[in-house]
């Protein structure tokens, strides 16, 4: 086995590390800690954060990539170089290997035992719905599947409830007394939902396609879980790409004023006036040409897809820094006239240190709020772009590609709804959690909100 570190993995791990580092720093600084405490004390904040953490965990699992070692060729001597598989897998793929490998021929409904379309029977006796290769194949009589599903789901439910009961007990007993201000109840109840759903799905997963299969027979549950990483990547890496530009230019424009301000304002006004989708489409296509012209840059298809994902993040970052930049410029204009900045100038402190020491920390609440708010917008933007066909690489699984593939089947009778609905549900929960969390963060960090 050989670990593969894709660029996006590296950046994602870096981001998570920064978040953990930031949390530690916030813990040390009493002011930030007080604001985060307010987030921790809010029920909706804690519930949203719990859901988000689950999504991040799935994405982290999906970011540990490796190439499998191929079995030694019979006859080759022991000293021969080890061969690795071309396909790059992730830890999530390994966990879901049954779902990944057991594909069906085409569509099948959630928990079905038969394909969704009729086919000619092997014995030539008319047409029928053939049995699935994987779903419900352990049953001798497919008619029993309903009872089987019920039995397994009940088992999953009971197991989930008992695991949850144990977790709830541990939290109440050990964690709650240490931090009574924290909204533990919200955590416990959110966990109840998550643990029960996960264990029911886990109980059914080894025997059925819980969310059905798509056109080429891939397990929809697997696709949905894989999409989470793409969505989070787009949401976070785009922010990472735009943040330096927005911070630097926004603060510079506000603090320096004069022609620097004019120049920066002209740049973002012009950029804002170009239709976003067109700009992104043009940039993506150019990127595509570059990537296709240099196949030697990429050892595997995964690396190529990863490059395209990163370039999408970069391009979306370039087109989306203007909003934050504008906000930061306005806030800096206000801060620059405040007396503590004047006092620093009276000491002859250099412009750069004033921006770094006095202005940057005082605009961080705006950055924090807009980053969390933008996240949900970016996840949705990816879906739209992939739907238009200028999003991620077709081989990358994302909510956008799932929706794009499923849209034609909505017209079919009877309707194939499960791909769309599962993508929709996961995206909805992710974006809702991000939005709720953003609201709570804004309330906690916005000094204007605190006065009210």
């Amino acid at each position, binding site marked *: 086995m050989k670990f593969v570190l894709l660029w996006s993995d590296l950046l994602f791990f870096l981001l998570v590390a920064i978040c953990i580092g930031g949390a530690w720093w916030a813990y040390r600084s*009493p*002011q930030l800690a007080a604001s985060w405490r307010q987030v921790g004390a809010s029920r909706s904040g804690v519930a949203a954060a719990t859901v988000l953490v689950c999504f991040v965990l799935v994405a982290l699992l999906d970011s540990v990539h490796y190439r499998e070692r191929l079995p030694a060729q019979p006859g080759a001597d022991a000293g021969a170089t080890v061969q690795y598989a071309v396909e790059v897998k992730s830890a999530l793929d390994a966990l879901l290997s049954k779902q990944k490998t057991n594909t069906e021929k085409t569509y099948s409904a959630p928990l079905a035992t038969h394909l969704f379309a009729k086919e000619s029977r092997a014995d030539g006796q008319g047409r029928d719905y053939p049995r699935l290769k994987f779903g419900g194949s352990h049953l001798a009589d497919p008619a029993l599947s309903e009872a089987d599903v019920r039995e397994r789901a009940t088992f999953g439910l009971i197991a989930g409830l008992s695991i949850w009961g144990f977790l709830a007990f541990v939290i109440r007993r050990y964690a709650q007394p240490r931090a009574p201000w924290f909204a533990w109840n919200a955590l416990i109840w959110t966990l109840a939902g998550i643990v029960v759903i996960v264990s029911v799905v886990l109980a059914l997963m080894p025997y059925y396609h819980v969310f059905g299969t798509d056109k080429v027979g891939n397990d929809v549950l697997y696709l949905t879980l894989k999409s989470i990483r793409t969505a989070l990547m787009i949401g976070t890496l785009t922010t990472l790409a735009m943040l330096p530009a927005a911070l630097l230019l926004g603060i510079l424009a506000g603090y320096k004023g004069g022609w620097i301000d004019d120049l920066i304002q002209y740049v973002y006004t012009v950029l804002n006036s170009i239709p976003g989708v067109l700009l992104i489409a043009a940039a993506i296509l150019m990127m595509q040409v570059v990537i296709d012209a240099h196949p030697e840059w990429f050892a595997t298809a995964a690396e190529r897809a990863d490059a395209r994902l990163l370039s999408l993040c970069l391009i979306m970052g370039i087109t989306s820094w203007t909003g934050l930049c504008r906000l930061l410029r306005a806030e800096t204009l206000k801060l620059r006239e405040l*007396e*503590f900045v004047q*006092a*620093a100038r*009276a000491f*002859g402190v250099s412009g750069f240190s004033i921006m770094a020491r*006095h202005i940057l*920390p005082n605009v961080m609440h705006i950055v924090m709020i807009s980053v969390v708010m933008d996240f949900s917008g970016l996840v949705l933007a990816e879906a739209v772009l992939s739907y238009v066909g200028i999003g991620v690489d077709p081989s990358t699984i994302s909510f956008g590609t799932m929706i794009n593939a499923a849209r034609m089947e909505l017209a079919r009778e009877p309707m194939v709804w499960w791909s769309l609905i599962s993508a929709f549900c996961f995206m909805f929960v992710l974006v809702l959690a991000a939005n709720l969390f953003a609201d709570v963060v804004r309330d906690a960090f916005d000094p204007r909100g605190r006065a009210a």
Partner: protein
Amino acid sequence: MSALNSKPLLRVNHLSVQIGAGRPVDDVSFEIKPGETFALLGESGCGKSMTALAVMRLLPPAARLTAGGVTYGDEELLALTEAEMRAVRGGGIGMIFQEPATSLNPVMSIGRQIEEVLDLHLGLRGGPARQRARELLEAVGLPEAERRLDEYPFQLSGGMKQRAMIAMALAGEPELLIADEPTTALDVTLQAQVLDLLKELQLERGMGMLLITHDLGVVERMADHVGVMYAGQLVEVAPREQFFANPAHPYSRKLFAALPERAGRGQRLATIPGLVPALDVKHTGCRFTPRCSEALDHCGNTLPEWFGMAGAQQVRCHLFDPQQVGLNTVIMSAPTALVEEPRVASSGPLLEVRDLQVHFPIRKGLLQRTVGHVPAVDGISFSLAAGRTLALVGESGCGKTTAGKAILQLIAPTGGSVTLGGQEITGLTGAALQPLRAQAQMVFQDPFSSLNPRLRIGAIIAEGMQALGQTENMAERIAELLEQVGLRADMATRYPHEFSGGQRQRIAIARALAVNPKLLICDEPTSALDVSVQAQIINLLHDLQQKLGLAYLFITHNMAVVDYLADEVAVMYKGRIVEYGSADDVLAHPQHAYTQTLLAAAFSPLRGAA
């Protein structure tokens, strides 16, 4: 007043307001007769505004009325429905707020806003309403009333806005006017005009008035009766003459003693140690006990009764308990004299300003061409010797702050010269300016915006030393500075939000002193502070001058502070210095008309009462 015997217009009975565990208004009772002014006096955070809001039933959502009653005429206001209450607000009781700039709707013309009130309370619309609005604007002395009706708030100056606000409050023909710090946001000269106007209107209409203020001068000028509030309770109620002749409660007496004035020069101002308690504190005894120099043993746990004195004066203090005979003659400890050391004889002026000009360009058009200039500072000259204090006096907008910043090269002067310690500093930039930065520093007006909320106190004070490369023994130096301004050395690790306004101003002074300056430019350092805290800061500045031989350029509009502190005075008007000379000359024999207006407008209560 003639109406002394008529029945009260407003009677507040044992009114209490609760927020959480605290009581910002606790057992407050008073009454106002028609044509009479009752002044609620006290520092910020004492519950004065909360009392007014409770009377109007406009309390914030977190506050609850827990006890007492408010009778207006024959009506019990607390029993009215919200709809009936709306008819009382504006109709029966009008209200004027502190900040004229924010109490008018910026997108409605003045006329529309007044007509709205007329429509609501008198049913006047169209032509008659406009006619009435014009009369009201004329009544409040707004020139060119007809034209003003169609103007928007941004087109009016601060004083005009406050007049428009008063016209609005009068539109409903109220019998009672609640004025919440009506002049605090205005310049001295305007203050006098607005107060005279209120008094005139009151005489004309026989209105009752509830005046809320922290300013003894305003009380002296306006009130018939005075109620002193402290931490939510009335502690003394008296007719004005008696109150000014013989303030009884220790808090009232301290308020008088804390006022700076000429007679007290060279003496330490009396200060009240500590702070007004926070709103959410629960009290058992007299609330002033922790800050009272005369506190008795049982003051802390027994709430004093009201004790009557001569006339209608009443006081809530154990010192006046008739059963403790002999105590009510306690005299406040005499003010301690400041140690007046011989002033450092200086060889020449430390700061010399010649024809200093600051013009702000007016830019227009696509290419932002400069089409004209606003002369903010228009050729001012003065000099200041080491260890002396020069007061730069003038109303807001006259360019005094701009002048201060231009001297420090925070704003590039357009012309003229500034010499500091014999060296020309205009035109210097960057590194060449650094050594001079150490010689002159600034203390700003607003202690809440002058400290970076994200830095610790230690880092704030260290900033100047780091920037100017004076980094030896920095930790010890910070500790020393904190102690020098009356704070504790261990406060260096805290953040600004943990400190009160007065403490923050001390930190700002420590920051300025960190680089051992010879000149301190103080831009209204006390105007955002309460009277008792102002006295502490003035004492501190005075001590520091004695000890370190600092020169102060004191930018202010407060004539009492000038009277108390300044050696020389420069009066600034519209960007120019119109009068300049020693404090004794200028204040005793003002030559210029503007100086005379300024001095006439600034009223010292003690001077008036004596």
